[in-house]
């Protein structure tokens, strides 16, 4: 294999007809280039969508109450019910594999009247009552101060964390925020921190929220032990989709709801949505490989074709070599190596060119700022290795028929050929 004479011969043969070799090589070059570009584009799209999901815990579902639609145990339908704080403990005790169970309450928001006052300034914001764990389910950057902690929950402190947009509308630019007070629906809260959500997903109100301790919120805004909705995250490796039914059954039992009442509890399963996207990219990658390999195939056929012609042209030479005592396997190996060499060299050129192209696209993307849904197209080393394996295999395939036809001709006939 690593034989100087064999290699010098391969080079000699392939350089005899430069232009033809170049044209043949272009077929393979083009095929692998298309494959790389398709894979990189798919990856870019995937990265873009994944960036939209951001660092949100994707193994999460959100769950809220809706009207009851079935009469059960003497209770009428079309009644309303609420999750209770006690439900949280019940979920923890009865369902395995959970990471976070965060009960949440909310007031105000996009339709509400002005609800927050500071001095002469007023504003309309969404107010949340939350547990400290929510920051791990819906990540945000704390830009100053701190987030709510468990002492706040236990002591029902009237403290709040505000978004950067809240700060903008209630404070002057240079004003100190931490330690100051704002009035939410007539109750004073001390600001303990500010946040900024880096992953807004196009939501312009993302920086306009105010977070308060769940217990404080319930007491101050008279929610008793009601829970507005819950964000539940399962541990990694246990899809929330698999255990959500357990939670629903448990809650229906606790709230005396017909087990088959499918509408009483509404939910949004982020994991399922996310899996769907992941599956989509699996399909996309498959299509990229499929199309890429098909384009590559036409290049391979080109190589095979040229090798057949080369063998035909060299029939006499092969006859001479066999008369001089070269074994058929040695001849076969020679043809196969020529074919593999040609395929790999042109394929490598395709990979390198593709890499430069992707680098260029990345450069342009960086210069012109982010494009929606398309981030950092790339191919990883694994793909390159796969491409190389494809190339070697296809080089073998391309050389196989010509190599066989080379040794099928008997030496005496080969010698007679002109």
């Amino acid at each position: 294999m690593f034989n100087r004479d064999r290699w010098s011969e391969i080079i000699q043969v392939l350089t005899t007809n430069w232009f033809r070799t170049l044209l043949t090589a272009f077929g393979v070059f083009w095929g692998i280039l298309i494959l790389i570009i398709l894979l990189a584009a798919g990856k870019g799209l995937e990265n873009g969508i994944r960036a939209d999901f951001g660092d949100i815990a994707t193994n999460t579902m959100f769950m809220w109450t809706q009207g009851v639609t079935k009469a059960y145990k003497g209770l009428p339908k079309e009644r309303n019910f609420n999750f209770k704080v006690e439900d949280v403990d019940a979920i923890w005790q009865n369902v395995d594999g959970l990471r976070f169970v965060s009960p949440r309450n909310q007031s105000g928001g996009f339709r509400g009247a002005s609800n927050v006052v500071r001095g002469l300034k007023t504003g309309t914001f969404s107010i949340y009552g939350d547990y400290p764990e929510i920051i791990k389910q819906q990540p945000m950057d704390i830009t100053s101060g701190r987030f709510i902690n468990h002492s706040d929950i236990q002591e029902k402190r009237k403290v709040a964390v505000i978004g950067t947009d809240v700060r903008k509308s209630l404070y002057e630019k240079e004003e100190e925020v931490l330690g100051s007070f704002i009035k939410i629906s007539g109750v004073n809260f001390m600001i303990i921190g500010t946040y900024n959500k880096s992953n807004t997903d196009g939501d312009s109100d993302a920086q306009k929220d105010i977070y308060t301790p769940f217990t404080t919120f319930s007491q101050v805004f008279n929610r008793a032990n009601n829970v507005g909705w819950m964000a539940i995250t399962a541990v990694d490796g246990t899809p929330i989709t698999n255990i959500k039914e357990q939670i629903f059954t448990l809650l229906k039992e606790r709230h005396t709801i017909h087990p088959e009442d499918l509408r009483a509890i509404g939910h949004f399963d982020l994991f399922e949505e996310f899996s769907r996207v992941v599956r989509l990219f699996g399909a996309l990658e498959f299509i990229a490989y499929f199309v890429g390999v098909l384009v590559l195939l036409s290049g391979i056929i080109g190589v095979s074709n040229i090798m057949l012609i080369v063998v035909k042209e060299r029939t006499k030479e092969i006859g001479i070599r066999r008369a001089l005592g070269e074994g058929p396997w040695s001849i076969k190996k020679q043809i196969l190596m020529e074919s593999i060499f040609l395929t790999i060299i042109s394929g490598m050129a395709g990979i390198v060119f593709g890499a430069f192209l992707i680098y260029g696209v990345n450069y342009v993307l960086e210069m012109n700022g982010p494009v929606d849904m398309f981030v950092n197209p790339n191919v990883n080393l694994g793909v390159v290795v796969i491409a190389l394996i494809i190339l070697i295999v296809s080089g073998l395939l391309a050389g196989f028929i010509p190599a066989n036809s080379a040794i099928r001709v008997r030496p005496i006939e080969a010698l007679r050929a002109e």
Partner: protein
Amino acid sequence: MIEIKNLHKSYKMGSNSLHVLKGIDFSVEEGELVAIMGSSGSGKSTLLNILGMLDAADSGEYVLDGVPIKDLNETKAAQYRNKFLGFVFQSFNLINYKSAMENVALPLYYQRVGRKERQDKALKYLDQVGLKEWATHLPSELSGGQKQRVAIARAMAAEPKVLLADEPTGALDSKTSYEVMDLIQKINDDGNTILVVTHEEDIAHMCKRIVHLKDGVIVEDKKVKQVRAQQYV
């Protein structure tokens, strides 16, 4: 050295079968220089091809240097050709993209001789045929006589038991022919066994023995007084 008994060979030509060799009995001692003569179609080339293991006989025995040549697969035949035989063809059959030296070194390559040793040997044999300073030239840069001398050097490089020459002078003018025959005679003087297929009387008489073939049988087999080619050069 060569022992042939009752050799038959026929070719299928469509529905007809052409019986080319009809029972050849023939033997060659070591160190002989034999001319095989005959008109075209007499079967002399077929005989040479069978002797050269390029073609297989239909029936009959063939023993080369004590080794029975029978039922060879291609790999085995290639090994035997490389070990036992050197070929010289009418049309030289040099590989046109390899230099004279590379051409001569080729049989040694198939014997897996190391690169350096191969080059040394190739140069030695090129020197013997008087073409050392042409070692790096391509065949296209050589004259017909020079090409044939390179081919002879190539055939000798593997130090074969028998040298088979198929019309070695067929494509050369008479002066060059004599030069080539002079070379062949000198190689024979060193004790090498050589078979020459030819249809030229004067070339045949430069050998030590002439075998006449006609219609697939040997009609005459005689020792002759060798005419030295040296005097015509």
